[in-house]
């Protein structure tokens, strides 16, 4: 990987470099705020784009730094803080949302990748007065303790039942060509992308079983 040279050194890198690099830090911050005119690309400064997407049925239009993840767009720009940030690296599932009907980790996706997409978050599944059946079942079965992983768990749980209905196999499916069934084993395997620090797993499985049987 080529060395970027001192002019492109990141702000964090410069600050970490200590007092001796203060003048350089100043130069680098200025540089970050003023992209060079006419530059096509390069680490020259933030690049912004206008993004349109539909979130929970409402059309949204935002100007964003290209680096903004879908997760940060939802939480910081659209103030939909139901979706949580756990690891920010695809390892916990707290940020799970539905995009065009499929669950994804919103932390490992850029907003610019979602131009024109339909996003559904926990706020779009149900409301306190009109809960989604899965939200209802989580309440009934105590499918959480601290609740931090819960929005991601519920979005995933709703998607899992849909994935089983549409015949998508899993690691524990014996017969790949037969019908898929929402057994406890299937649901546990399919929910493995959602970690719960409080260990509410068995209650989550019970909540899902109740909705699957309904």
């Amino acid at each position, binding site marked *: 990987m080529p060395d970027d040279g001192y002019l492109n050194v990141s702000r964090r890198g410069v600050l970490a470099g200590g007092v001796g690099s203060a003048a350089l830090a100043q130069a680098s911050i200025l540089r970050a705020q003023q992209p060079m005119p006419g530059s096509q690309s390069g680490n020259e400064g933030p690049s912004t784009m206008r993004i349109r997407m539909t979130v929970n049925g409402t059309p949204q239009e935002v100007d964003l730094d290209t680096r903004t993840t879908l997760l940060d767009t939802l939480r910081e720009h659209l103030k939909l803080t139901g979706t949580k940030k756990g690891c920010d690296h695809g390892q916990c*599932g707290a940020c799970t949302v539905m995009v065009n009907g499929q669950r994804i980790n919103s932390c490992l996706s*850029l907003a610019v990748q979602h131009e024109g997409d339909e996003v559904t978050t926990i706020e779009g599944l149900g409301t306190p007065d009109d809960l989604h059946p899965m939200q209802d079942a989580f309440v009934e079965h105590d499918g959480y303790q601290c609740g931090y992983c819960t929005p991601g768990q519920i979005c995933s749980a709703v998607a899992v039942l849909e994935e089983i209905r549409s015949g998508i196999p899993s690691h524990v499916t014996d017969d790949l060509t037969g019908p898929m069934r929402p057994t406890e084993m299937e649901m546990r395997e399919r929910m493995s992308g959602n970690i719960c620090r409080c260990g509410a797993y068995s209650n989550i499985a019970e909540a899902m079983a109740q909705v699957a049987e309904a």
Partner: protein
Amino acid sequence: MRSFTYERAASPADAARAVAATQGAKFIAGGTNLLDLMKLEIERPTHLVDVQDLGLDAIEETEEGGLRIGTLVSNTALSAHPKVRRDYAVLTRAIQAGASGQLRNKATTGGNMLQRTRCSYFYDTNMPCNKRKPGDGCAAIRGSSRQLGVIGTSDSCIATYPGDMAVAMRVLDAVVETVKPDGTARSIPSAEFHRLWGDTPHVETVLEPGEIITHVRLPAPLGGRHFYSKVRDRRSYAFALVSVAAVIQSDGTGQVAFGGVAPRPWRLPEADAQLRNGAAAVVRTAFADARPTEDNKFKIPLAERTLAGILAEAKG
């Protein structure tokens, strides 16, 4: 994350040209590996060329009786395709053994082939790593190497290609189709796609700068019984310590490839030829040139036992 500019390309050749024309440009497909590494500034692209609008999201039947998979087909869609489930079950099994439901919905066929190593020192920018920074040294060789490679590695880097799907692709003799920036197309057999990197571990595949994957082609089905066994530290949502992909015919012949052990899915024709002589004979042949570390030499007997399990099931 470093800042970058972003565009969506309209055709594979446009995308290839756009990446070749801009210093530091990269393709982005699902982004599930690239963004992870960009957040850590291990990858620092100046420009991203998004390939999602290229119309490469279909699975077509080929004249030779196989399948041609567009690079943008998601891991979920590929594993669930009726023909893949029926005729290429090893592929469905391998994909479903990897990552999580959320990640498989986003991960693409080409992006999966190109996912980078999971060596923990590669991820830790405070440690020397030849793959991250050529000439920097390798922290793993004298460090903790339990997850790392036992064969095909070098004195510069002992990491592995970590993925599952490509191990099945190797058993099926898949072919990677690409387009270069000058518009020419080529087909790369999966046996040659990942390099044995020697003293250039930062160059992981034979792709040239700007060369874009458009499809992965599967030859006509092999028949037989299909297996993918993955051994890992937890039962789901973890990378392989060792994985074995195999297609076994009723006469005991077949194909076998190992994952989690080398810079590429590891398969040798002379090891395939030993399948009727049992797992020990296969593994002795496949791993004859192994150079494991004290930490990871367990992978060779583990590979043998994992294959033995498959062969027992194939007989039963």
